[in-house]
C-alpha cells in the first residue's frame, strides 16, 4: 500500500500548499500552483521518494491525487 501521509507530504512540499488542503480530487484544475512545470517536479519527487521509475505516459496521466495513487500503485508492482 502507498503511504498516504508520505504522498500528501510530497505533494505539499513540491506545490507549496498545506497537506490539509490536499484531497483525493485535488488536481491541476483545483490547485493553481499545479502547473506543467510543477507537475514534472512532482513526478521527479514522487520517483525519488517512492523509488520508482515512471514512464512518460504515466507521468502525463497523473492528473489528480486519485490518479497518482492508482498509477503509483501499479508502477510499484512492476
Amino acid at each position, binding site marked *: 500500500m502507498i503511504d498516504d501521509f508520505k504522498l500528501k*507530504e*510530497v505533494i*505539499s*512540499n*513540491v506545490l*507549496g500548499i498545506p497537506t490539509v488542503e490536499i484531497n483525493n480530487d485535488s488536481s491541476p484544475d483545483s490547485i493553481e500552483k499545479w502547473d*506543467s*512545470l510543477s507537475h*514534472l*517536479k512532482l513526478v*521527479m*519527487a514522487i*520517483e*525519488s*521518494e517512492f523509488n520508482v521509475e*515512471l*514512464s*512518460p505516459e504515466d*507521468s*502525463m496521466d497523473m492528473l489528480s491525487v486519485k490518479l497518482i495513487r492508482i498509477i503509483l500503485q501499479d508502477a510499484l508492482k512492476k
Partner: protein
Amino acid sequence: MNGRMGKDNFSSIINSPSDYARASREIEENDSLNKINIAFLSSYTSEVLNPYIVVELAKNGYKGSLYYAPFNQFEQEIYNPDSELYLFEPSVIIIHSRIEDTHQNLMMRFAKYSDDELIEISEDIINRHQKMLDGIRSKSDAKIIVINFGNSQLTEEYFISSPVIQSQQTYIQKLNNSLLELSKNITSCYVIDYQQLFAHIGLNNSIDPKLFYMARIPFNSSSQITFGKIIARMIYVIFRVPAKCIVLDLDNTLWGGVVGEDGISGIQLSDEYPGNIFKAFQRAILGLRDQGVILSIASKNNINDVLEVFEKHTDCLLKKSDFSSMQIHWENKASSIEKISKELNIGLDSIVFFDDNPAERDWVRAQLPDVKVVEVPKNPINYLKALHESKFFDSLIMTNEDRVRADIYQQEQQRKSDLFNSVSVDDFLRELKMKIKIGFSDDITITRIEQLLNKTNQFNLTTKRYSSSDIIKIISDGGKVLWLSSADRYGDNGIVGVAILIEIKHKIWIIDSMLLSCRVIGRKIETAFLAEIVEILKSESAYELYGQYLPTKKNHIVSDFYKKHSFKLTDKKNNFWKLNLNESDIIKPIFIQVSRND
C-alpha cells in the same frame, strides 16, 4: 521548523527533491540571510534547479533570489538594456548554452562535418559567447558564471576506439579551452567545468530521457542536486574571502599514533596501509602550500620528538621549513592559534583549524569563534574529503603572489629573527635593502589590485572594497589607481600596496583608498608610497591633497597615519585630513630605493 533558520540549521538531512522543495520555500521566509540576486540564462528549462541552488546557497548564509530567462533568450536579454535581466539587478549572471540545444547535429551527427565546417562552427560558438559576455560586461557589473560544454553521451562502442567519436571529444575539449581563454579576458568571469562535472557524475547516470523530451530538462533529479550544489559553491567562493592559513595538529592528524608514546618508529606514516593514508594527507597539505596557503602547527607535544620526526622520518613529506609557525607545547590550542595569528600578522578569521580531537575543536570554537574549524571525521581515510568539502581553500584566482605567498611568509620569519639580532630598527631596515616600484593599474595587475582591495584589513585607511569593474570605472572617470611592489634581500614580495586617488575639485585630490599588505607593515614603505603619490600629483600641479581614515575593528594600526605625515585634521567628525602640497613635502626614507614602472 519555523522561520528562524541560520546557516547552520541546514544539514545533510535535506537530500530528496521533496525535502529541497520544502526547505527552499522556508528559506524564502527567512530574513536573516544575505540576499543575492542571480539571473540564469540557459538553453533549457533551468528553473528546475531552483530549490537546489537556493538551499545550497542558504547553507552558506545566502538567500538566493533567481530570475530564469525564458529558455534560449540570450541575445534578447543581454543586448536590450531594458530587459528583465537588467531590471532584476543581478549580482550574478549564469550563462549556460548547451551545444546539444544549439547544434544538435554536432552532437548526434558529428561525422557529417568536414574539418573546415567544424572550424567554422567552433568559431561561431566561441564568437557568440564572446559577444554575449562583452554585452553583459558593458551593461552590468554582475559576476558572470559561464557553464562550459559537456560531452555527448557515450555508448560502449566508444571504448573500442571509434576515431570519429574520439575526435568529437577532442573537439569539445578544444571548445572548452577557447571558452576558458576568452573568459580570462572578461573581468569577474568564472567558468564551471560542466564537462568534467558530468564526467564525474557519469553521463549515463545523469539523464532522464523522459524529462528531456517532455520538458527540455537535460538532467535527472539527482544530477540536478549535484549541479545546483556546484553552482552554489561557485557563488559562495566568488564572494567570500579565502582562508590564508591552516593550523594543523600532529598526532593522529599528520601521522597515525602518538609520537610521544609510540616513538618515531612506532607512528603510522609509510607507503603501506594505514601509514599511506597519512602520507597522502601530508602530500595534499603540501599541495595547499603550493597554492599559497600558509602552514602552521598547534600540537601538544615535546618539541624534540616532533623535530626528530621532521628531520629523520623518511616518509614524513612535510619538513620543519614548510611551516611558518610552530606552536608545540602543552598550552591550550586557542592560545596557540592566537600566537600564530600574531606572529604571522593575519586575522583569526583567515585561519582554518584541523585537529582530529573533537575536544580541541570545541575548545577552539568556543574560545575563538572567528577561526574556521574543519569537522574532522573519525576515520583518517576521510580527512582529505572533509578538507575539500569544507570549501575553506577553494580558490578562483591564483596569482603569482599566491603561489609564492607561503615562501614569503617563511622569509618573513627569517626577517623577524634578524630583527631581534640587529642593533636598531633603522639599521635593520637599511640592511633589508628594500626596493619598491610604483605603477598604474593595467590588465596584468588589476586582478592582484582587486584581491588586495578585498582582503586587506589592517593597513587599510578606508577599507573600501572594489571589484575590478569598479576599478576600471574609477580610472575611466579620471581617477588614478596605483600599485606598489616591493623586494628586499630576502626575496620578491610582489604587489603589496594599492592607492586610489580621485580629483574631487580642480587640482584638489583625495586618497580614496590606500593599503599595504600586512607582510610589509612596519618598514616605512607607506611613507615612501605617500611621497611618491605627492610627487605624481604635484607633477600635475595639484595643490591640495585630502585623506580620510575610516576606523574598523582591524585597522587601528593606521589611525594616526595622516597625523604622522603632517596632514592637518579638517573635519573631525568624518576624519578628513589635508596636506597643502605647495607648503609641505613628504620625506622619503633614504633606505628605500624607489622606481616607477613606465
